Structures are given as C-alpha cells and as structure tokens.
C-alpha cells in the first residue's frame, strides 16, 4: 500500500502551499508555476486547497511566533508520507531575519524537510528542478 501511495505521489504530486511570514515573492513564483509559461499541471502537479489532500508541502517564509502553531497544525493534518520542500532562502535558514525578535524559523527546526530550494526568490525553473529531484529520491 505504501508503494502505491509513493507511486501516486511521484506520478502526480498534489501540493499544498504553506507560507508563514514570507514576503510573498516565493509564493508568487510558486503560483507562476501554474501559469502558461511554466505550466506544472502538465506534470500532474496540482495545487490543492486543503492539506488533507496534499502529498507535498511547499513551505515558504521565515516562521514567526504567531504563525508557528498554525504551521504545526497544518503539518499534522497532512497525511503521511508527505514531502516537505522548503522554498526560498527564508525557509532554508531564516535569511536576513535571523536576528528578529519575532522570527522563530527555519522549518527544519520543527518539521522534517526533504528538499531545500534556496534563492530569493528561486527561479521557477529551479523550483521545478528541486521538486523533481525530491520526487526522484523517493
């Protein structure tokens, strides 16, 4: 059963986008993956509206104190196995906000992260490459 789920995940990953205290640049680049220029839907990747339907979490932003409980709750709601992909330098290592009183990230302090795609913001091509690499490791 697990192999079937992994196969489904690899063939058509349903991704849920979660941003916690981000500047939204990475988030817009993620949305741009859906637009005609990059069009990830031809790979079967679909952006879903609920973490309960998600195979992969695309996480962005440096988490802040108010968002942290919500981030943890979303992660708990996502059925496992789930791939967590940290997009953007903020999600990888807090970036320029590491000295802020309100920033408590990065994500790998609280949830397991499977792939890191640095960049501010990473190019859409880099994001596609990162997601494909993460999937191929499954």
């Amino acid at each position: 059963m697990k192999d079937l789920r992994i196969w489904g995940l690899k063939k058509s990953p349903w991704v849920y986008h979660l941003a916690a205290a981000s500047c939204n640049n990475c988030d817009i680049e993620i949305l741009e993956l859906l637009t005609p220029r990059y069009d990830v839907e031809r790979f079967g990747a679909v952006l879903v509206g609920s973490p309960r339907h998600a195979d992969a979490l695309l996480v962005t932003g440096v988490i802040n104190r108010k968002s942290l409980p919500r981030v943890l709750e979303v992660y708990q709601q996502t059925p496992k196995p789930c791939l967590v992909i940290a997009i953007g330098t903020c999600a990888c290592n807090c970036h320029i906000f590491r000295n802020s009183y309100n920033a408590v990230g990065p994500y790998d302090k609280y949830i397991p992260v499977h792939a890191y795609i640095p960049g501010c913001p990473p190019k859409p091509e880099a994001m596609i490459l990162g997601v494909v690499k993460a999937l191929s490791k499954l």
Partner: protein
Amino acid sequence: MSEEIKNQRIVPIGPYHPLQEEPEFFKLIVEGEKVVDLEIHLGYNHRGHEFISPELTYEQIPFLVERICGICSNSHPLACVLAIEDCVGIKLPARANYIRSIIHELERIHSHLLWVGLAGHFIGYNTVWMWAWRYREHILEVFEMITGNRNHYAANKPGGVRWDVKPEQVPMIEAALDLVEKKTMMLTKAVLDDPVIRARLEGVGILTREQAIAWSVVGPTARASGVDIDVRRDDPHCAYDQVPWNVIVLPEGDVFAKAKVRLLEIFESIKIIRGCLKDLSDGPIEISIDEVPPGEGIGRTEAPRGEVFHYIRSDGTNRPLRHKIRAPSYMNIASNVVAVRGGSIADAALTLAAVDPCYCCTERMAAFEDGKLKFSGKELLRLSWERTERLRERFKR
C-alpha cells in the same frame, strides 16, 4: 475570543491569493446573508524590519526593505533611499532619476497585472488570471535583462541606481511595452464590457470619499473613491515632473472603480516609461555619499498600492538611529472595516481583495454568525464563484 479560536477547526484556504495561510485573519460577523462587522487580526507576517534596520548600514538597508514585500519590491527601497538622500540633502544626476522612474513604473505594470489576474480568479474567470500573468512575464523578463533578477532586483542605492539601462536594451524594453499595451487593451475591453463582471463588481464594497479621507487611505483605493492624491505628482521625485502623464481618479468607490483605475494606470505607466526612454540623457548613474549627517529625512513614493513612507533619524554614524517604515496596505486594509459592512458574504472576499493587500495578508477569511463559524474561507471563494455563475445565467437569457 481566544477560546473561540481554539474551538474552531482550521480549514485552510487554497492559494487564490499568493499570501500565507493563516486562520481567522479576517473575521466577518454576519447576520443571515449580510456582513455586519469585520475583525482584522494581523501579525502573521510581522518579521520586525524596524528592529533589524538600525543594525545595518545605510548601504545594506535597501536589501532589507526590499524583502518587506515581494510584489512591490522596488517601492520600499526607493522610498528608503529617498529618505536617506533627504536627510543628506543631495540632488541626483538626471540619468539616475530617469532610470529610477523607468524601473518603478515597470513594477507598477507588473503589480497591476498581477492584481487583475487575481481579481479574475476571485470571481471565477480563470482565463483572465492566466492571460494577465502570462503577459506579466514579459515585464519580468525586462527586469531580468536590466538587473539580473525577476523580482528583488535591488535597483536603488543611496545616491543613485545600481544598474544602468544600456542602449542595446532599449529596443527590447520598447517591444515588451508595445506587447503589454496591446494585450492590456484587449484585457481592459474584455473586463469592462463584460456585463457579468460589471454586475459582479459594480456597487460592491463601496468606500465613500468621506470614509476614504477619515481612514487616510492611499493609492488606487483612494483614487477610486474620488480622492485626488498621487505622490508622484504631489511630491515630485525621480523624473515624474519631467514627463507628461495623468492621474486617474474615479468617483464611485466600488470594486469596479478600483479595477478600472488600476487598468488605466497601466497605460499611464507605459506613457511614463516611453517618455523617460526618450529623454534619457547621458551621464553618471550615481553620486557617492560620504556620510549621513545627524538629522532626519522622509522619503515617499507611490507604490502600486499607494504611498509608501519611510522616515530615517540619523545620529551621524553609518547606521540609522530609527527607521520607520509604513507600507500603503497598512492604511488601506484598516478601511475594510467600513467597506464590507452591509454587503453580502460573497462580495466580502472581493472587497477585501480590492485594496490589493500586500504586506499584510488577506487570504485567510472566515464568516461568523453568533460567534459560530458559518463559512470558512474556501467556502467564501466557492460562494463568490457561484454568484458569478448565477449572473452569467441571467445575462445569457
């Protein structure tokens, strides 16, 4: 109130708005089908820029403030360096000013197209979304050509600009402008002539002129309510007083007026860029600033969302004593409290998005009646789409 939040299940909303997912960010208090009040809960994006800024030097700060917002990532550095230059009291070379205006207006075009796309997605016209974002890509390519990055291009520095517009790049900029102008014209006609879109947007979320003044709103939100303000004209900076262009003001105050203002501003921006490219003279693109004397400076510019305001207090060292940052959405989002009242729940999602919120986020909304969760955010979006469908049926007959 915190007990209520703990008891409600968190149903995250999908990415109809590219901002983060937070629960109960906008709490609509409803009675039946009407929205009677709105509670706004902020703080999910607060990263403490004003706390970090005094630790950085004046050269480093534009890189920090660029990352306040990803969509208007040029407006904050521009206002910030204008504040530093106001404190020092210098005039820039002409070429630097013209390049600043070109980059700033390119940003306005791509930001307005982004909003138009999202507004289309909100009301169920996904084709508008795809078209608007597709032609936005051409502007991002121009940015990549000039500065090396699609967003967060760090074009401004205290004393000038960091990237020059080379003569061989000008034909590509002009080609992109011609294409975007043609496609925006097509999009504008399609949007403004569509009876369903008009029925959906007209009369929705009205912010009266008196309310706009009492809440000190800025940008297209104010100009769509008849308040004739634009920092580019009122407090001239860069090259805005050197090229001819118009301020778009409409009196109705509803979401349709806001959409029209933004679409028409795209054409004005194209006009400004063409004027700047024509008058671009040779010369240096920067002057060096040796030190920032003790004192204070204020810099402001017209971001796509309105006036962005930066204040710097200097104590003579190479780091500021205090750096105050105010994004335009700070004033605009607060005014939603009056704009949504009396409207239906389906229209509330649209009204909240109509101010084109940036810095703070609007994506997460829920409607409550008698303290109980009635509609989650995803359902609000579905209500909006259903309403559009009903209007489509009505107009077909």
